[in-house]
């Protein structure tokens, strides 16, 4: 996909590229089997988080090192709803998770957007750690480091149409949840795509490029940053909500700041100056981490080296680099 804010996007062309991809994704589970399907669902959920995150980094120019808070808020809210309210409907859970992350990102964002640059990053990080320490310490409510389990058999999809009890429940869950998450993922992509190509999205990019001038063309800079923060946090919260049933439990690990670092990592891996970058980055990162952990006790070394090399040599990420190679090939 083209670089942010080049010439106006052509919708027929996007559809021409998008529809075959969607169809391919629809048939994919038939060919790749249970495990790969499950990995792909993880990839989609992280992609939603990275997409939300990138509204701040790529489009508004704010690097949040505290997005674990919103992911975790979505996840924990779903866990509370299932455990304490005995709600089964995943749709209600998602609604709750999204609302909770919206509220918390509105509060945290209100504080954070008074700052920019490194101060913004550190404040976002400090606030996220408040949530982490609460989840960590209040054992009898949050399960402490044990976390809260969200058993699959207590979840139903599409208003109770699909449930997951009895034999083969796990397989049924993975295959139905794949399509469930895929649809939500596609909706999230479309919504985010519209947002970044809307006048509002242009205004955010203007803030990113030049906040002073943005003010002088009449853009209320701080308020728009806040709005972007809330949208970003809410997307990430949606991702957290979807991630819980997949993972089966939620622990304070997803609230701890290195997880925020992973969200940043995903986005940069794909390339934060493009719309598709975070999506590609999140899915790739998930594979990278799973296979690094499986392949070596020194998986952190692998991930860290990839990150360093990426930043030093491929700052535009996978998508940006592919784009550059494509341009070079075209030129001859």
């Amino acid at each position, binding site marked *: 996909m083209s670089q942010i804010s080049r010439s106006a996007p052509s919708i027929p062309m996007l559809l021409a590229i998008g529809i075959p991809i969607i169809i391919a994704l629809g048939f994919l589970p038939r060919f790749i089997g*249970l495990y790969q399907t499950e990995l792909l669902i993880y990839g989609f959920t992280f992609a939603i988080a990275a997409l939300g995150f990138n509204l701040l980094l790529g489009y508004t120019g704010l690097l949040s090192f505290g997005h674990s808070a919103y992911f975790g808020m979505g996840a924990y809210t779903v866990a509370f709803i299932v455990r304490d309210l005995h709600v089964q409907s995943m749709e209600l859970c998602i609604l709750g998770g999204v609302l909770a992350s919206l509220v918390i990102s509105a509060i945290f964002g209100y504080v954070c957007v008074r700052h920019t640059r490194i101060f913004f990053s550190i404040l976002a990080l400090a606030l996220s750690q408040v949530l982490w320490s609460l989840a960590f310490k209040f054992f009898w409510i949050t399960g402490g480091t044990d976390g809260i389990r969200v058993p699959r058999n207590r979840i139903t999809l599409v208003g109770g149409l699909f449930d997951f009890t009895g034999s083969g429940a796990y397989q049924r869950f993975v295959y139905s949840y794949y399509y469930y998450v895929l649809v939500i993922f596609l909706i999230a992509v479309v919504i985010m795509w519209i947002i970044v190509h809307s006048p509002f999205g242009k205004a955010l990019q203007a803030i990113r490029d030049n906040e002073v001038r943005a003010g002088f063309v009449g853009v209320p800079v701080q308020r728009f940053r806040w709005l972007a923060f809330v949208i970003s946090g809410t997307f990430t919260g949606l991702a957290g909500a979807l991630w819980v049933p997949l993972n089966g*439990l939620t622990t304070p690990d997803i609230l701890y700041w290195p997880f925020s670092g992973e969200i940043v990592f995903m986005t940069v891996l794909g390339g934060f100056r493009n719309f598709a970058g975070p999506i590609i980055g999140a899915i790739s990162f998930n594979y990278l981490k799973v296979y690094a952990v499986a392949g070596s006790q020194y998986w952190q070394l692998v991930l860290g080296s990839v990150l360093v090399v990426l930043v030093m040599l491929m700052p535009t990420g996978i998508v940006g680099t592919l784009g550059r190679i494509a341009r070079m090939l075209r030129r001859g």
Partner: protein
Amino acid sequence: MNPLDRRSFLNKLTVGAAAAASGSAAYFAGPRPIQAAYKPKGNIPDKPFKTGHITFLTGPANLLGEPGRKGHLMAAEEINAEGGLLGRRKIETILADEAAGTDANVKELRRMKLSENIDLFTGIVSSGNTPALGPVAEELGVLTLFNDGCTDFLFDKAVPKPKYVFRVTNIQSADGITSAVGAAKAWPHAKRVASLQPDYSYGRNVHEHFMLAYQKLVPGATSVSEAWPKLGTTDFTPHITKLISDKPDILICGVWGGDYVAFYKQALRYGLFDKMKVATTLAFGGQPHAIGKDHPEGVLAGAHANYFFTFPGKGRWPINDSFVERYYKRWNEYPSFEADGAYTSLYLLKAAVEKANALVGGWPDDDAIITMLEGMGIDAPSGYTYIRPDNHQGYKDAVIGMTKNDPKYEFPIWDPESIITIPIRDITAPPNWPKPGQGHNESTAAANWLKTTWLT
């Protein structure tokens, strides 16, 4: 179950090495021979038997993870030396690091089953992880023998009706109660109790079950101080000062692994051991040599109510004698309860596979193996271990002892005169006791059983 009262319960407990032998006469009536080689029936494939083993390969918890890994590998090597399971299937092991965190462990278990196609999953040290991994193992349908991760939450809450999941070492509530019994026996007048616990399910469980049992054994005992350091804490000094300032008679400490080593060394320099009696649940849970000679004597040193290699003593239980000898030869160190647990797990599997083969011939399917495991008993280095069919939990008589230096070793061991063996049936909820949510809202079935029936 015969109702017990406090006095007769404490009195009938056997103390000391000599007493232990006679007290456990039912189990130790005579050394049993190691099983003779089994001749399998039917056609056995020679496909390797893949096991996944997740344990702490790094970090402070490595003190427990390492012996587990070694016990597992040693059992696999021994079995493979005889040709493998049923003489044909060699055991292969895929290792992963538990220190990667719960979420990563969950993902790794899925990968092991779905991508590597393991036949058996074993390992796990942390109580935070079994309730997370148990349900995953059930839904994947992977036969699982947890060595440890002993929290009651696993079979009380996370997997109330296990099919594939078993656990070999003692349940946590038994661990907490064992320390309470040991403490009450040694210091019957210690009423002011302080508690130092790692802040997660294990520490919470220890605190609760210890207090429930201790308050019944020592009437008037109260909790006067609590400290909840995070797992992996390196600086215990403010906790130690706080504990001293609250002037308890006794400290119950559930801190374990490298954390315990850091704690006891710092406590020593702050004079904590001079100011109160100390009872632990896991001081002797790690590699025996990890505890230095500087460790004070007369501390109640828990080993998870399971096993310390000097007990049963030489000549009293040949299985242990030979296990300790082989383990030392293989790894140049002494085994811990995790080593026994991991080792026993594979031998349990072997026994179940052979029993199932004897019945149906060929390589038995998982259902057949599971049927055999339910209710199976085995003579392990630590004594007789029994898998209770209702909850798939391993049970064995609980043991605990006091620290004492012995010139023969570079580290303190249990004072032979102090070791207590507690019949497991006296300190654990009987089969099918209502679980949390079934008519009571205690955190565990054992807590409810302790409150309602124990020593009344």
